[in-house]
């Protein structure tokens, strides 16, 4: 572990801002964060020369050059020539592709290296805790961030767990050093929700609602009806009337926060889609192990899904007779598919390799750990592919992306090298 990093931003800052204003405070927070991160962006011009540049969005160039200025991709061009004034990173025997995006993790919330009891994923004290915020628990010094950076993960959505119907707010991080404020990139927060088993067992077992799927749907609808009414009113209520729980839900209804709904079983998936349609919620579904059973319905909804950590449709209690290529089948049905680690499996590339092993097309599998998750978290304008104007988040590989033996040898985030593989490794 590196030296202890100073956090420049006290946790209370954003909470105070939110109390003083309505749900729009989220936007305020986002703007503040964006301003803070831009001052750190590298002003350097960098050219990365590679044997192959896989842009993900516009095919591959062999050989190819990625030109970077001020932390953004300036140009991706064929050949090996670099303009004057650029410092050159020679990856001429390497493959370059966008940094990986993991649209469902809990990194930093379960830093077991500190103490065995450091487990801050789930505020399971009540079924609705929308005001819980991962920024208040997240430990940016969790060594797992270093570990997954070396495995190519540059953009991470860190979410609360799934014990509650509404568990709280997750945020998107760039996986770099310098403390939480440098990691947060100011995109919309993501409200974590959950259907099915987890909230039922977390609360039903303690003799409180929800005990059934009927209960969980009814409770969610009741609360979101209130939130929708609040949004329709248009303006915040009088001072003293603050209901922070409701304001967060209102932010989701108003589209200022995305949602990410944990749904494993086919019926839970359909319930999630209905909820999103009823209240105009924008976002994605998570896990979707039985998504292949309702693939057409998901495709029609246009809602993206993030599959995993299990990819073969096997989960305790309901195993299909054969392993199923869940992600591949959803993709073929027209669903925008991403693959997650859930922070329980170590490696997005390993996940993509296993998806290919199950039958998914390689190109699809690579999109599922880059551009598709970027879209699912509302950040496709910044990350997920190598295109002019996007953040210069690049990884350099010593072999084919979907070979089990391939290693990430260098990682750049916004033009700055944040990882280099030691020669001895």
């Amino acid at each position, binding site marked *: 572990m590196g030296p202890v990093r100073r956090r420049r931003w006290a946790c209370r800052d954003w909470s105070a801002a939110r109390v003083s204003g309505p749900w729009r405070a989220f936007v305020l927070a986002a703007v503040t964060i964006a301003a803070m991160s831009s001052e750190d962006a590298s002003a350097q011009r960098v050219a990365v020369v590679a044997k192959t540049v896989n842009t993900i969005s516009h095919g591959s160039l062999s050989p190819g050059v990625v030109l970077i200025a001020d932390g953004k991709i300036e140009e991706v061009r064929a050949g090996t020539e670099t303009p004057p004034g650029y410092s050159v990173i020679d990856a001429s025997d390497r493959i370059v592709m966008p940094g990986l995006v993991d649209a469902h993790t809990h990194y930093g919330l379960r830093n077991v290296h500190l103490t065995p009891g450091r487990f801050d994923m789930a505020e399971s004290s009540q079924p609705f805790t929308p005001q819980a915020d991962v920024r208040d628990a997240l430990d940016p010094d969790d060594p797992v961030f270093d570990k997954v950076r070396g495995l190519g993960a540059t953009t991470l959505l860190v979410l609360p767990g799934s014990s509650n119907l509404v568990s709280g707010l997750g945020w998107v991080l760039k996986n770099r050093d310098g403390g939480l404020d440098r990691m947060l990139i100011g995109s919309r927060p993501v409200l974590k929700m959950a259907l099915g088993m987890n909230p039922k067992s977390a609360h039903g077992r303690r003799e409180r609602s929800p005990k059934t799927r009927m209960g969980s749907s009814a409770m969610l609808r009741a609360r979101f009806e209130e939130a929708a009414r609040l949004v329709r009113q248009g303006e915040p209520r009088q001072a003293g009337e603050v209901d922070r729980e409701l304001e967060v839900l209102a932010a989701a209804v108003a589209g200022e926060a995305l949602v990410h709904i944990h749904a494993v079983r086919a019926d839970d998936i359909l319930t999630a889609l209905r909820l999103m349609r009823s209240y105009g919620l924008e976002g994605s579904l998570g896990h979707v192990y039985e998504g292949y059973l309702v693939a057409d319905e998901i495709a029609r909804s246009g809602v993206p899904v993030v599959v995993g950590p299990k*990819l073969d449709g096997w989960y305790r209690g309901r195993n299909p007779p*054969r*392993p199923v290529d869940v992600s591949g089948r959803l993709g073929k049905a027209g669903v925008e598919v991403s693959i997650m680690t859930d922070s329980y499996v170590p490696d997005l590339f390993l996940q993509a390799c296993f998806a290919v*092993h199950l039958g998914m097309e390689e190109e699809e599998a690579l999109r599922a750990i880059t551009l598709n998750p970027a879209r699912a978290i509302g950040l496709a304008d910044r990350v997920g592919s190598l295109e002019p104007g996007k953040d210069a988040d690049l990884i350099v590989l010593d072999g084919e992306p979907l070979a089990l*033996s391939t290693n990430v040898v260098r990682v750049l985030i916004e033009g700055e090298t944040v990882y280099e593989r030691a020669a001895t490794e």
Partner: protein
Amino acid sequence: MSVQRLSSWCIPVLAGMLWSGPSVGQELVPDQPAGWLVRAGTLWSDGDGFVAGGGVLLRDGRITAVGPDLEAPDDVEVIDVPDGFILPGLIEAHSQTGLHGDGVGWDTDEDTRPITADLHALDAFYAFAADVASARRSGITTLLATPGGKNLIGGSGVLIKTAPAVGDENVVRQPAVLKMSLGDEPKRTNAAPKTRMGEVALLREHLTRARKYEEDRNQAEQNGERPAVDAEFETTAALLRRELPALVQAYTTKDIANALRLSDEFGFDVILAYATQAHLIAGELARRDVPVVLASIKGLWYRYEKESFNERNAAQLLDAGVRIALQLGEGNPYGSGDLLFNAGYLLKHGLAREDALRAVTSWPAELLGVADRLGRLRPGMDGDVVVLSGPPFDPRSRVLHVFINGQRMPGE
């Protein structure tokens, strides 16, 4: 364990398993020709690495010939896979596959008392379970099925083939190991132990009583008496006679050290399982020649001691001269039996391709003492063969054919 002692309980066990129908397995495995000749573009010959172009002739349950220019006898069916790879059947050296029941409770842990040395995994192994089929489809032809890790001593483990059959043709060795477990899990399971001190004290008491049991039996035999059998100590006495090793599930160096101390004190052999911190004491393990069975990918289930998982464990142990084999591990996210894919993940963590293959074929055969029958493509070995559509560890490769005891397993 002597054949007489083995048969005293093994035969009733098998007879009991057979009641549900004598030919269930045969129905699932379609009629077979007198033999098979399998040819493929590449053959894994272990000592020589990959060999271009070759075939394996299977007859009477065994490999009868291996080579580049094998002629097919008339009564033999030929399978040609020009782009394929032929491997020996994979061996998983520690597993609870087949013990989970099929959705009706789990049969892995009889966790009602901390030491259940009288139990045998064979009594729970269900050859028709979905996880056994999945392991077989993925190329595992033999596995060491043991009780889980909740008890200090879970019982004996059986080395067993994965064919859908209940007869003893599936049993390679029984009992193959005595399963022990140290660390967090036994502490959290029963009324006692509650500490590592308690763990070792309870084990020491059991081992002391087993040693006394063995002495009393020997004395009785010398006196020409018929010694009384006590199932509680039968397998442990065999452990103390070094007829089988203890397979000890332990994660931290502390628990590994406790296992080694007990093995010194009572004189028995140890194979470590999981042993996530083993690389920290690799030199000591090499000096003692204690082999380690490792998971190549950390499981999904959270527990503090498992968080010390380190992908470079395998490579570092090998470098130090420790014998290893690979297992899937609890809570494994990849493929419910896909040992080869899992082993492949260590290629990027310092393990050579050839060693990754050995760690799921010849090495587990050696450390479980069955290298004369399993783990290599050689004449005289069991007819356990796997045919892949492409190179091993290429995610696109699929298992095309699986042969167990010379029989092709049903296409799936």
